[in-house]
């Protein structure tokens, strides 16, 4: 049973079926409860079962939680929505070609048209091997000579110096992830998306300065990448004026029936 920090059941406040409501309704209720309370998680309560029932019925969960110091026969289990799978991505055709000649993409990074607005469980490994195969066939059939490296400038580190303050990277990294978790999670609203938008725009500017002034590190490169991805998620979420599949916006809670479903396309991204 799902409970709040005080151990009170909360699902019945959202749906008369309680914890047995459909999965997407439960997910939205958890999101709402976390936002209402300002805490980072809700709890699963298994303490109403006997210790024997728990240990025999859920041996893996029991062991795993014990490893984190949680005895689920006595303690509440903290749970929260976790980002799991990216259904959109780099657009490809059926041969895994992107819109840039010579560039292919396959696997979770892509948007091939297979998943649409929500992924069917266990279709992702299949998609990865099918499109990797298609890409290999095409790339071998249309094989291009290896380009000469002479005309390509070496990496320009410019006047970059070692940063003496890595805290900027840590701070921005944390701020992007928190903004996305709080404002662009399971339930979105126009206001939440605008909040995320303004924060990410500001961080993008800061990263731009930082990026050209300091010697690159893996943390900095990853920060620069998650800023772009966050920007793309918010851009796509703001453009979709309906709720469909995994995208739920409380300000337009239904699918748009006035026009055929369409993909959200970003061409010519500027960063």
């Amino acid at each position, binding site marked *: 049973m799902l409970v709040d920090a005080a151990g009170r059941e909360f699902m019945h406040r959202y749906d008369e079926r309680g914890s047995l409501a459909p999965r997407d309704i439960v997910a939205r209720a958890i999101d709402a409860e976390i936002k209402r309370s300002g805490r*980072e998680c809700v709890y699963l309560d298994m303490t109403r079962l006997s210790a024997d029932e728990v240990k025999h019925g859920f041996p893996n969960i029991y062991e795993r939680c014990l490893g984190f110091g949680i005895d689920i026969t006595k303690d509440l289990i903290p*749970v*929260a*929505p*976790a*980002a*799991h799978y*990216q259904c*959109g*991505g*780099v*657009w490809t055709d*059926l041969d895994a070609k992107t*819109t*840039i000649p010579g560039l292919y993409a396959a*696997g*979770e*990074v892509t*948007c091939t*048209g*297979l*998943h*649409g*607005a*929500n*992924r*069917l*469980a266990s279709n992702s*490994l*299949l998609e*990865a*091997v099918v499109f*990797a*195969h298609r*890409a*290999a066939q095409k790339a*071998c059939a249309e094989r*291009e000579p*290896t380009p000469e490296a002479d005309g*390509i400038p070496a*990496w320009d580190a410019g006047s970059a110096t070692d940063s003496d303050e890595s805290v900027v990277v840590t701070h921005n990294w944390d701020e992007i992830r928190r903004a*996305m978790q709080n404002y*662009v999670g399971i339930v979105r609203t126009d206001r939440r998306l605008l909040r995320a938008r303004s924060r990410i725009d500001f961080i993008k500017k800061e990263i731009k300065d930082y990026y050209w002034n300091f010697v690159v590190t*893996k*943390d900095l490169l*990853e920060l620069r*990448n*998650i*800023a772009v*991805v966050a920007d793309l*998620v918010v851009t*796509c*979420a703001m453009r979709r004026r309906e709720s469909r599949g995994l*995208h739920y916006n409380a300000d337009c809670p239904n*699918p748009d029936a006035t026009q055929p*479903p369409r*993909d*959200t396309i*970003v061409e010519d*991204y500027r960063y």
Partner: protein
Amino acid sequence: MAVKSDFLVIGSGIAGLSFALKAAEAGRVTLVTKMGPEETNTKYAQGGIASVFSDEDDFELHVRDTLEAGAGLCHEDAVRLVVTSGPERVRELIAWGVEFTRSDNAASNGYDLHLEGGHSRKRILHAADITGAAVERAVLAKVAAHPRIKVFDHHMAIDLITRRKLERRRKGKDRCLGAYVYDTKSGDVEVFVAGATLIATGGSGKVYLITSNPDVASGDGVAMAARAGARIANMEFMQFHPTCLFHPPRGKFSDQ
């Protein structure tokens, strides 16, 4: 010194590895991966791989289930392609040494098929509950042993190198020539050139504070492709696990 090859692969999950094995039949392959090669989203896939393997199942049912989940936005041609190619690709994984859990059920052709949410038939091949790790291990072993594939671990692609970027223009003919690659151990950045480049960097769970993904999933491929001007689609559709075990971050970049 630039690193030259016929094919450049960025990422060492199942997409990158299986592409590398196939492309290596035709030429030299360079594969870059930012941690050790086994640290990928593939490895953490716990479910399995969906494919029509049972006599009680058929392609139309798998297509229908996929379209239903996709809420009107799937491209039916892509769905049909993936579903109908499924059994052949799964048999290839088996030939490469992936050991899916067997059963003596003749109707499912000797494999133990799971039923998962949204599927109307049993069709999930799995290796106990560690399918991703089993797939990753078997295919990585083949890649590591292949004489025409060179793996650069602890190497992170920074940006793609394209004609348009070299010539500082936003329009006109374009082509991807390779990537700038950062050696995370030495700190050097090198030019990698190739006739064809594959992005197979996986997902982007680390864009969120709480994620089931490993630390490497920072959306590098989407970000690189977007900066190079490639078309990006449907990024609003991020799938969440609503009830993931929550434990506070243990280190600044580690909170799986």
